[in-house]
């Protein structure tokens, strides 16, 4: 069986990142889920963004099919963009996905778990912006 797209969830808060990962994996259903890693907060446990945690998470979920990175805001966005700009600081095939954090994470994990490729995962996560709530 071919590798699934890995998902990295980057939040200013470790609790938010790990909880959203848990939520997305829970909604993706049992068995055969895509690899998901949370990269929340700073390396010392505070609120913020850690390039090191992001790199570690991306490496952990990289199975060769690409890595979709979802971020919350501010420094999380800029740190991932800065790492990607260098070309060698994240695994090849890593992509920052423009998506709402919670809804996008669920869409990404469900799509990746079903065997969708990186384009499909990114598209599903981005489409979550289009779901109106009123």
């Amino acid at each position: 069986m071919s590798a699934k797209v890995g998902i990295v969830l980057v939040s200013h808060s470790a609790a938010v990142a790990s909880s959203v990962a848990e939520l997305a994996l829970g909604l993706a259903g049992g068995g055969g889920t895509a690899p998901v890693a949370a990269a929340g907060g700073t390396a010392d446990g505070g609120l913020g963004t850690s390039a090191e945690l992001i790199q570690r998470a991306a490496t952990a979920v990289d199975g060769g099919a690409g890595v979709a990175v979802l971020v919350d805001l501010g420094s999380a966005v800029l740190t991932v963009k800065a790492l990607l700009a260098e070309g060698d600081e994240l695994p090849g095939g890593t992509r920052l996905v423009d998506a709402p954090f919670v809804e996008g994470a669920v869409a990404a994990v469900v799509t990746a778990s079903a065997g969708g490729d990186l384009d499909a995962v990114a598209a599903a996560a981005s489409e979550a912006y289009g779901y109106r709530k009123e």
Partner: protein
Amino acid sequence: MLDADFFRRWMTGMAAAVDREADRLTELDSAIGDADHGANLRRGFAAVVKALEEEPSGTPGSLLVLAGRQLISTVGGASGPLYGTLLRRAGKALGDAAEVAPVQLAEALRVGVAAVAQLGGAKAGDKTMLDALEPAVEALAESLGESFAAAADAADQGALATVPMRARKGRAGYLGERSVGHQDPGAASAALLVATLAAARGAR
């Protein structure tokens, strides 16, 4: 010509300035941000100095790339990837020459500041570090890299000019009109970066 020691003096000087001014930066950031700018930059530039001490060789370009990488890795706030990108891009633009002419540094900094604008999606007048950085690199370029003092003055004036501006980027952007009347902490730290550059040149 500017050698590797010049760039070490700049970064060491910035670390000392950030350490000295950390409380002021955090105070500015507590008005319109999340009150961590001083502490974040103190941690970041302390890591820069440590990394430079462990790298006794190095060219102007490679030292700036190393410094930029440290900032991206250690700052923990948006200023990390922004200042990190500035130094890294400027370092790459300098190439691997052992010494660079001031006019080359002026051009490299212009490239670095343009990369910051692209990364953050901000422009002049958005109440960000660009309001200090852009006038500084313009002043330096106009003097063909000769007037570091003019660059530092332009950065100071640019930072002060952010006081009446309305923030459009980052957390301060959520405050809208309520951000008016406060100096942008990123512009304040950017002015320090240019002031310490001028000091490394003996122009301040």
